C-alpha cells in the first residue's frame, strides 16, 4: 500500500508540531511508567506473599502440666492428619535456646527468669497454606493445649501477618490502578488534542485532499499513524526506563543488598511487561487519534 507515504506524512507532521508531540509522548511515557512500576511492585509483593504463605505454620502450645504421653499422643494425632506436611516438636529447652538466640547480646534479661516458663509446642506445616485456619480450629478445645480460659491463644497461626500484608498490597494495587487509569485518560485526551491540532493545522490540506479525490482512509491514515507513533515512542521510552529502574534500583540496589527480603529478581516477567507497555501505549495512541478523527475530521 502507500505505507511509506503515510509514514513520511505522519513523521513530518510530528516534527512540524514537535512541542505538542513531545507533550503527548511524555504523558504516554508517564502513564506507562506508572503502569510498569506498579506491575513490578505488584509482582514483587505477590512473590513475597506467596513466599510468606508457604512458610505459614500452625503453632500449638502445650500446657506445662501435660504428661509426656499426652504430648506424644497429640503428636501422633497431628501426624495422622492428611493436610499436614511436616510436624516439628519444640521442647521447653529448645524454646528457651531459640529465645536466647534471638536476644543475642542481651542474654542477661533471661537471668531474671526463675526456671523456664516457656511451654513446649508443635510447629505444623501444611501442604496447602489456605487450610491453616481450618486445621488450627481442631486444637481449640483440646484439654492439653495451653489456652487462657475462654480464648484460643494456645493456637497461633501466621495468618494475621499475611492477611495484613495482603490487605496493604490490595490497597497499593487499587491506588496504582487508579493512577494508571488517570494517566491513561490523560494520555488519550492529550493525544486526541494533538491530533485535533494537527487536523486543524492541516484543514486546508484536508480540503484539498478531498478535492483531488482522496478517499477518507487515505486522509485518515497519516493522522492515525501520528497517534500510534506517539503512543509507541512514549511506551518504548517507558519500557526502557522500567527495565533500567528494575535492574539498577530494585535488583542491584535493594535485593542484592538486602538479601533477607523475601523478594526475587525473577518475580517480574520482564518480557511480558515490556510487551504489555508497548501494546498499551500503542492502544492509547490509536484510541486518542481515533477519537479526534471521529469528532473533528469531517469527511
Amino acid at each position, binding site marked *: 500500500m*502507500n505505507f511509506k507515504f503515510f509514514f513520511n506524512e505522519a513523521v513530518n507532521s510530528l516534527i*512540524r508540531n514537535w512541542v505538542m508531540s513531545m507533550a503527548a509522548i511524555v504523558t504516554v511515557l508517564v502513564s506507562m511508567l506508572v503502569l510498569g512500576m506498579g506491575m513490578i511492585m505488584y509482582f514483587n509483593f505477590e512473590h513475597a506473599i506467596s513466599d510468606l504463605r508457604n512458610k505459614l505454620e500452625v503453632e500449638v502450645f502445650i500446657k506445662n502440666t501435660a504428661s509426656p504421653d499426652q504430648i506424644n499422643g497429640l503428636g501422633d494425632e497431628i501426624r495422622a492428619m492428611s493436610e499436614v506436611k511436616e510436624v516439628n516438636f519444640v521442647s521447653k529447652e529448645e524454646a528457651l535456646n531459640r529465645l536466647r538466640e534471638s536476644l543475642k547480646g542481651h542474654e542477661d534479661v533471661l537471668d531474671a527468669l526463675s526456671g523456664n516458663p516457656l511451654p513446649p509446642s508443635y510447629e505444623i506445616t501444611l501442604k496447602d497454606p489456605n487450610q491453616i485456619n481450618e486445621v488450627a480450629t481442631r486444637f481449640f478445645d483440646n484439654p492439653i493445649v495451653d489456652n487462657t480460659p475462654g480464648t484460643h491463644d494456645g493456637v497461633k497461626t501466621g495468618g494475621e501477618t499475611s492477611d495484613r500484608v495482603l490487605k496493604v498490597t490490595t490497597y497499593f494495587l487499587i491506588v496504582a490502578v487508579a493512577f494508571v487509569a488517570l494517566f491513561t485518560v490523560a494520555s488519550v485526551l492529550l493525544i486526541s488534542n494533538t491530533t485535533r491540532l494537527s487536523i486543524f493545522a492541516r484543514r*486546508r490540506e484536508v*480540503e*484539498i*485532499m478531498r*478535492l*483531488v*479525490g482522496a478517499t477518507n482512509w487515505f486522509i485518515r491514515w497519516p493522522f492515525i499513524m501520528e497517534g500510534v507513533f506517539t503512543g509507541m515512542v512514549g511506551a518504548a521510552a517507558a519500557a526502557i526506563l522500567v527495565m533500567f529502574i528494575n535492574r539498577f534500583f530494585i535488583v542491584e540496589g535493594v535485593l542484592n543488598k538486602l538479601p533477607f527480603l523475601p523478594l526475587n529478581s525473577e518475580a517480574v516477567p520482564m518480557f511480558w511487561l515490556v510487551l504489555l507497555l508497548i501494546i498499551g501505549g500503542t492502544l492509547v495512541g490509536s484510541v486518542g487519534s481515533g477519537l479526534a478523527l471521529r469528532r473533528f475530521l469531517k469527511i
Partner: protein
Amino acid sequence: MIRFENVTKMYDPNIVGLEDVNIHIDRGEFCFLVGHSGSGKSTFIRLLLKELEPNEGTITVAGRNLQRMRHSALPYHRRNLGCVFQDFKLLPNKSVADNVAYALRVTGQPARAIRRKVPEILNLVGLGDKMNNLPDELSAGEQQRVSVARAFVNHPSLLVADEPTGNLDPDTSVGIMQLLYRINRTGTTVLMATHDREMVDKMRKRVIALEDGKVIRDEDKGLYR
C-alpha cells in the same frame, strides 16, 4: 458531459443559489460561466463537485447521476474531474512535484508511474525547472500552472476552473488561458467560471450567463457583455 435538469439550490428559504437551471454541456466543449459575484457561479461548480446537494432537480456528470451516487463513490467522481481554483489550493508544505504527485497518489498509482508522469506534466505547463520549489517560492502565475498541472495529471474527462485568472495580471492570464485551451484540444471538456471580460470576448466560446441564480443567456461563440 454535464447535464443540469431543473436544478434548484436554496441556502436558506429565501437565499437563492441556483433556480431551475437547465444546462447541457457536451463532451469536448469549452464553456464559460459568467456573471456577477453572487450570481450562482460558485454554487454551480460546488454542485458539480458534489460539495453541495441541490434541493431539486438532477445533475449528471459523465453519465453518472450525482444524487444517486453513494458517499463512498465521491472520491472516484472527483478524480475524474480536475479542479483549478482562484486561490490555487496548493499544499504549502509540499514541493511543486509533490503537489502534482499527490493527485496521482490518491488514485493509488505506483511510484514508478508517478516519477514518470510528474515531470512530463510539469514540462507541459512550463515548470520543468521548478519541480523542487515550494509553492511560496513561485509567482502567482506559476502557482496557477502547478494547479492546472495537478488538475490535468490524471487526464480527467472534465476540467473545472473557478476564476483561475482572478488573481493574475492580464499577461499571465493569457498564458493560463492558452494552457486550458490546449487541454481542451486534447478532448477534455473545460468549464471555466470567470469575470474576465477581455478573455471571454477574445476566445469566442460558448458563454452561459447567470444572474440571481438563473440562466439569463446561453450562446455559442458568445461575448461577456
